[in-house]
């Protein structure tokens, strides 16, 4: 199929798709309309369980089973990356040379690393109160560690990042989500049902029953998954070289 012919097919299909999508847009409920039946019910259910952040309540309570699916996709994607980016037999590792980074940049990295880490943990811990949660905070905490690569060199990052520990943490966090779900079954209700713990006082750290626990599990899962993921990419980009002459 020639390039020109392919572009013609694309233009034809794209025009048809565009026409259909635009027609569909005019049939959607108008932007900013007042009718959100599911939203209103979700808010009521969340307030009944004393979870201040309704989005967290939807994610980790009302639709916790869906989040389990999302977490498995995340876990599988990271597993796929680890398998795809492993060191092949015809490759060897090269120690990267230590690099000279301007002093202000290095100092900035060392100062902001703990601040970013605390910010990430704050976002995780307050997931059921203020905007945030395990997904967001996990990414922030994991990114914080990589300031060491940006502000110094890859060797420095490797010294504070035992990759095996993060791989184990990743699996443990995924398991703990499942175990919390199964605890519901053992307690006599349903999988991932939020009936195990008392709902607590509204707008405090311990409110919302199992929501904070599931939130923390997702936070650990995401943080260690991102660290493992970036470790593979950094290995490939910085360390692993192909054998010369292969």
């Amino acid at each position: 199929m020639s390039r020109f012919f392919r572009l013609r097919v694309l233009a034809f299909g794209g025009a048809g798709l565009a026409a259909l999508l635009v027609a569909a847009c005019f049939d959607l409920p108008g932007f900013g309309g007042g009718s959100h039946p599911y939203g209103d019910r979700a808010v009521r259910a969340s307030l009944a369980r004393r979870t201040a952040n309704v989005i967290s309540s939807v994610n980790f309570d009302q639709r916790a089973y869906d989040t389990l699916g999302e977490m498995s996709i995340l876990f599988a994607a990271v597993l796929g990356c680890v398998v795809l980016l492993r060191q092949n037999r015809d490759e060897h590792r090269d120690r990267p040379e230590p690099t000279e980074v301007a002093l202000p940049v290095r100092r900035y990295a060392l100062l902001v690393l703990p601040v970013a880490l605390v910010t990430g943990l704050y976002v995780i811990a307050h997931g059921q109160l203020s905007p945030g949660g395990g997904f967001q905070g996990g990414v922030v905490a994991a990114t914080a560690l990589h300031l060491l690569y940006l502000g110094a060199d890859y060797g420095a990052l490797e010294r504070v990042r035992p990759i095996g520990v993060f791989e184990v943490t990743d699996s443990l966090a995924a398991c703990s989500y499942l175990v919390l779900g199964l605890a519901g079954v053992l307690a006599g209700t349903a999988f991932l049902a939020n009936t195990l713990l008392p709902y607590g006082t509204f707008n405090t750290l311990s409110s919302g029953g199992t929501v904070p626990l599931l939130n923390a599990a997702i936070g650990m899962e995401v943080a260690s998954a991102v660290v493992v993921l970036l470790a593979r990419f950094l290995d490939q980009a910085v360390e692993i070289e192909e054998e010369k002459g292969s």
Partner: protein
Amino acid sequence: MNGWILAATVLLAGGAGTALWGVATGPLSRRVVAQNLSTSVVCASLLLLAQGYDRTAYVDLGLLLAVLGPVGTLVFARLLAEDLTDDRAAAWGLTWTTVGVDAAVVVALCVAAGPGRAMVKLLVVGALLIGGNLVASRALSGGFQGVRGG
């Protein structure tokens, strides 16, 4: 619509629009500078929006961006260091202008918030943002000279 949201709209339309144009065209050195400046413009407008909607919880967005935005610029400064050796990406006039805008926004918000925990939080965000912006500018204008293999 109140004055805070109007200010955020103007800042977005002017500053972020310019940054988008700068990042989409021109030599690489100009693009990375525009990327760096977009962080401060967007962070300032997020803080303004938080005040405009009267939701202190939205300040977390500004906090996150103030922490991670400069990190993103450092990524580019580090991994494009070889391409940036030929033409230094230095635009200190522009950098100081945005720093001034950020400082003005933070001070105005602090005055509106009044003394208390919210004000300290805004000051922390402002310090992280301005410090990060200056360090990222420094990194772009030759902060990673010796970086070859790493």
